[in-house]
């Protein structure tokens, strides 16, 4: 029951993100290249989350648990990598954009990049550790 609740919550969050993203795209008017890049990362994150949810549904249907001790450890490990990536991107991305492109990043862009960098690092490390082993 706990597994099913988790799966339903995951589907709900992914659907909410997609609905929000579609509202944004429909009302944004002209979308610039940087925004395309950020939207692409969000779509990659949602697709990866859907893959993880589908894998959990497959396991629950077979009578296996959606998550076990190895996946919990994998989750913690991926979370810590995501956290480190967020901190480094908060410091590094404004610096790089300032030095290399002579562009001072607005605060909302930095926030978006930090969230997306953390999320992407979490997803990549989670999928790597979960399906390739440690």
């Amino acid at each position, binding site marked *: 029951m706990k597994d099913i609740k988790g799966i339903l919550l995951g589907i709900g969050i992914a659907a909410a993100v997609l609905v929000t993203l579609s509202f944004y795209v429909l009302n944004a008017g002209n979308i610039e290249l940087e925004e395309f890049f950020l939207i692409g990362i969000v779509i990659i994150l949602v697709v990866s989350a859907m893959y993880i949810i589908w894998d959990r549904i497959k*396991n629950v249907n077979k009578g*296996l648990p959606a998550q*076990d*001790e*190895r996946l919990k450890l994998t989750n913690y490990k991926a979370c810590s990598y995501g956290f480190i990536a967020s901190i480094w991107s908060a410091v590094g991305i404004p610096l790089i954009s300032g030095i290399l492109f002579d562009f001072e990043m607005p605060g909302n862009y930095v926030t978006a990049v930090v969230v997306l960098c953390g999320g992407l690092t979490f997803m990549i490390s989670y999928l790597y550790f979960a*399906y390739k*082993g*440690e």
Partner: protein
Amino acid sequence: MKTRIKELRARYDLTQEELAKKIGVRRETILFIEKGKYNPSLKLAHDIAKALQTTVDELFIFKDDE
């Protein structure tokens, strides 16, 4: 660390999935333990040993240099 899980599974004619169901873990976890890519907790090691009707120290072979 090496394990005898594969050997004992074959003895009891169990697939990785059947053993995983018995213990309550995912199939990949059994696969990674067999390959030596994941060190299970003491409780999981005990559960696997129990499911394969053996003891933890017979199931896992430790080398001193590890």
